């Protein structure tokens, strides 16, 4: 048993010792670094370590939570005591109970040794290469806001009074760049990014070139005319929408009547061109882990398939409410947060069209490459959305002039019914959670511009 598992074990004992009828402890230790470069120089270099424990205590069917950074014996005991006190304040909920232990299959390849092998000067060079590629691409590329490389290696251990015990280690890294282009009297920005388990998996030139291309493309952008028309969403935008859909498929929102998908199981609400899975064990998925935030094995779940809504995502609590099994979909934002149901890696199925094929099928419409204002422009309860967008006009089946300062509006479920084709190539995108998606063609969406 590692040191972290020992802390988790001790925390569980401290909570039951403080009067909890059941307890669970989640311990994480994360080490990471971040490099930000600007103008060929390092702007900041951060070295970080973070360790903490979160304890869930049950008092019968009441549950409370406490977390902290003090992992000394006295520190853990104090946190356990606060968790037990918190449980006393909560109301009785017959479905609140810890999960039973289950066989967890190990998942190899989550931790990449190249993070440890690449010394800091080497990842600084990587970040500088990202920036340099963008700056050297075109004279109209006048600067960068920031170029960033960051990595982290996290160890997680979990233990409970019901016998759950597990640990794993996973690593991740990413690099991104926000580039500034200038032309026709205006400034434009473009984002390029890449993510991998370790720095050797990143392609700095590709990231820099993507940012430059996105910024340069937008030079001279005007407003499109208001209308309803076919829309092609690029992978980054499709991922943002997939994330919203995945959130609406979490059983908590469904059970509490706060999801546009509530009460629609087995309904033919999507087009056959759109299929969605959640896969917590995908070897390439950034969110993959052998078990979820409460120790339940991760798995693959079909959510939307053959045009029908097949399943919701469950953690132990929401599963208990319906008398079904957890789908291993408990998630947390680290030790500070209570586990709650959420997607892991969302996988949107690929189709058979190239991007050119999607644009040709769109005929006359808009290719959307960026959306803004998702947190305020989407109503997660009703699914009604109106968000800011930018991209390119599609004319005669091909990309034409850039457009910005318009909105795309509609309703999430109706949008699924209007997906008329999916692209053949998917990409992992860190927006909307952790999503792998191809570009998508939507038959009709409302555009509001000039």
């Amino acid at each position: 048993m590692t040191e972290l598992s020992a802390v988790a074990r001790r925390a569980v004992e401290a909570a039951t010792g403080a009067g909890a009828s059941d307890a669970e402890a989640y311990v994480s230790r994360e080490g990471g670094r971040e490099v930000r470069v600007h103008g060929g120089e390092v702007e900041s270099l951060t070295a970080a370590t973070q360790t903490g424990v979160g304890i869930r205590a049950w008092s019968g069917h009441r549950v409370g939570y406490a977390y902290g950074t003090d992992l000394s014996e006295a520190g853990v005991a104090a946190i356990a005591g606060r968790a037990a006190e918190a449980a006393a304040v909560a109301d009785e909920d017959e479905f609140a109970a810890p999960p039973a232990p289950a066989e967890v299959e190990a998942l190899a390849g989550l931790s990449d040794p190249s993070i440890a092998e690449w010394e800091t000067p080497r990842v600084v060079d990587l970040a500088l290469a990202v920036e340099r590629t963008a700056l050297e691409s075109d004279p109209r590329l006048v600067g960068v806001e920031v170029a960033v490389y960051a990595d982290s290696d996290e160890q997680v251990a979990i233990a409970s009074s019901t016998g759950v015990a597990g640990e794993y280690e996973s690593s991740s890294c990413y690099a991104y760049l926000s580039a500034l282009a200038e032309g026709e009297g205006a400034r434009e920005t473009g984002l390029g990014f890449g993510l991998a388990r370790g720095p050797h998996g990143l392609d700095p030139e590709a990231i820099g070139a993507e940012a430059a291309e996105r910024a340069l493309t937008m030079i001279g952008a005007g407003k499109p005319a208001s209308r309803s028309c076919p829309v092609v969403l690029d992978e980054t935008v499709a991922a943002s929408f997939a994330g919203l859909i995945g959130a609406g498929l979490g059983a908590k929102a469904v059970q509490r009547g706060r999801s546009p998908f509530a009460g629609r199981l087995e309904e033919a609400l999507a087009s056959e061109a759109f299929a969605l899975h959640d896969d917590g064990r995908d070897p390439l998925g950034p969110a993959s882990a052998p078990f979820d935030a409460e120790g339940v094995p991760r798995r693959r779940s079909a959510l939307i398939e053959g045009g029908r809504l097949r399943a919701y995502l469950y953690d132990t609590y929401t599963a208990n409410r319906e008398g079904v099994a957890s789908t291993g979909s408990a998630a947390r934002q680290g030790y500070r947060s209570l586990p709650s149901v959420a997607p892991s890696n969302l996988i949107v199925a690929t189709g058979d069209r190239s991007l050119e094929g999607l644009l040709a099928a769109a005929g006359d419409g808009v290719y959307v490459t960026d959306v803004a204002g998702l947190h305020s422009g989407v109503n997660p309860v009703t699914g009604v959305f109106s968000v800011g967008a930018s991209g390119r006009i599609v004319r005669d089946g091909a990309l034409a002039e850039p457009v910005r300062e318009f909105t795309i509006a509609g309703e999430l479920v109706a949008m699924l019914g209007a997906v008329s084709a999916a692209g053949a190539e998917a990409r992992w995108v860190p927006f909307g959670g952790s999503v792998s998606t191809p570009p998508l063609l939507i038959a009709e969406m409302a555009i509001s511009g000039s």
Partner: protein
Amino acid sequence: MSGLIDQALAERTLARALANGGRFAEVFAERRRGQTLAIDEGRIESVQSGAEEGAGVRVVDGNTTYFAHVDGLDPADVERAADEAAAALRAERAEPRPLRARETTPLPIERRPEEVPAERKAELLRELDERARAKGAEIAQLNASYGEARREVAVANSDGLFSGDDRTRVRIGVQSVARRDGTVETGAETLGAHRGFELLEDDPGQIAEQAAGKALTLLDAVPAPSGSMPVVVGGGFGGVLFHEMTGHGLEADHIQKGASVYVGKLGERVAEPLLNAYDDGRLPGEWGSDAIDDEGHPTQKTQVIEAGRLTSFLYDHLTAERDGVASTGNGRRESFRDLPIPRMTNTYIAPGDATPEAMIAEVDQGFYAVSFGGGQVDPATGDFVFGVSEGYLIENGRVTSPCRGATLIGNCLDALAAIDAVGDDFFMKTGICGKGGQKVPVGTGQGHVRVRAMTVGGTER
């Protein structure tokens, strides 16, 4: 300084941070504690409390900042952070100046929330639940949350500054869902302040009724219109309009990187002469107020627009140094795990002399955005977007149908210049602002404001 870190340890830490050179070093120590609980489906749940402490040390050399943070405030932890920050430097040792402790007066807290029994907070949530449900049988779902947070901070730097602050904030929020046949609508409201539990002694139940009222009103909503039209924006959280379309663009880091549409506009006319606006981190009790910023600089009131002219940017220590000016006390960070960057505190458009009624009466066909769910801006291009949480049509000078699904979109410079009326009905509201992955509490405020023309993006065909 709040007992977080004593002067001798701070001096030792700064000396170690400069062991391999550097022109500036700083240690920031923090203890944060909080409690949150919620009510949902009439049941108290998600009762949780947290306690974290740690320190962040930075060393600045040339244009580079070296930063390390650790959990824990044992002297060994804090000094380890200094060693890690200094590890990448290769120059001659530098000497920090002796520290001069500067006393600050934290904002007064009358009733410490951590001394209020959790049961009392649960009772409050039950009251919010009842008050909202009493607004009508069509209220189908109600969830409300209570949160309190205390941050004790201490900061010392190699220029000799040694200061601290003790901040307590309390906030409640209510989200309601109304249902009628197949129609579902939502309404939300919040109340928060840099104050103690005394904030909730008046009648916090009002916000539950307001949240429920919004959802009920929207049951009769029509799809929002699309196109360019005059827009009247409501007071309070309507100030997020100014926060996004001007405030962010005035943060000096964006300016210095050429990533703001306000570059080169200092002293220029950017708005009608009727517009005056401020960032004020000293407003008593306000959500975005603190005694000092997270670099130890006293917070201040900064006029950013005076009679339509741009008068100041918002600076932290490093950006001020680069421009050869004084910090405006806007160096903020989410926690000891983050580097400070220029951030707004309480940002607002000062009261004007128009009445909301008069400014609406002058609009033939337009849109009335009472409140927003939030907004977003790209400071470099100036493109912004706001999701309207409560909006109405204006027809022939009168407020008519409520609208669902509206978004306002535009470009900062155009929209700011198009403000042609500012109301006298000023008030402040609370927000959480995200930038560079860091969230900080900010206040936004204004009376009603009218924009001559703005794009409303709705779903109406």
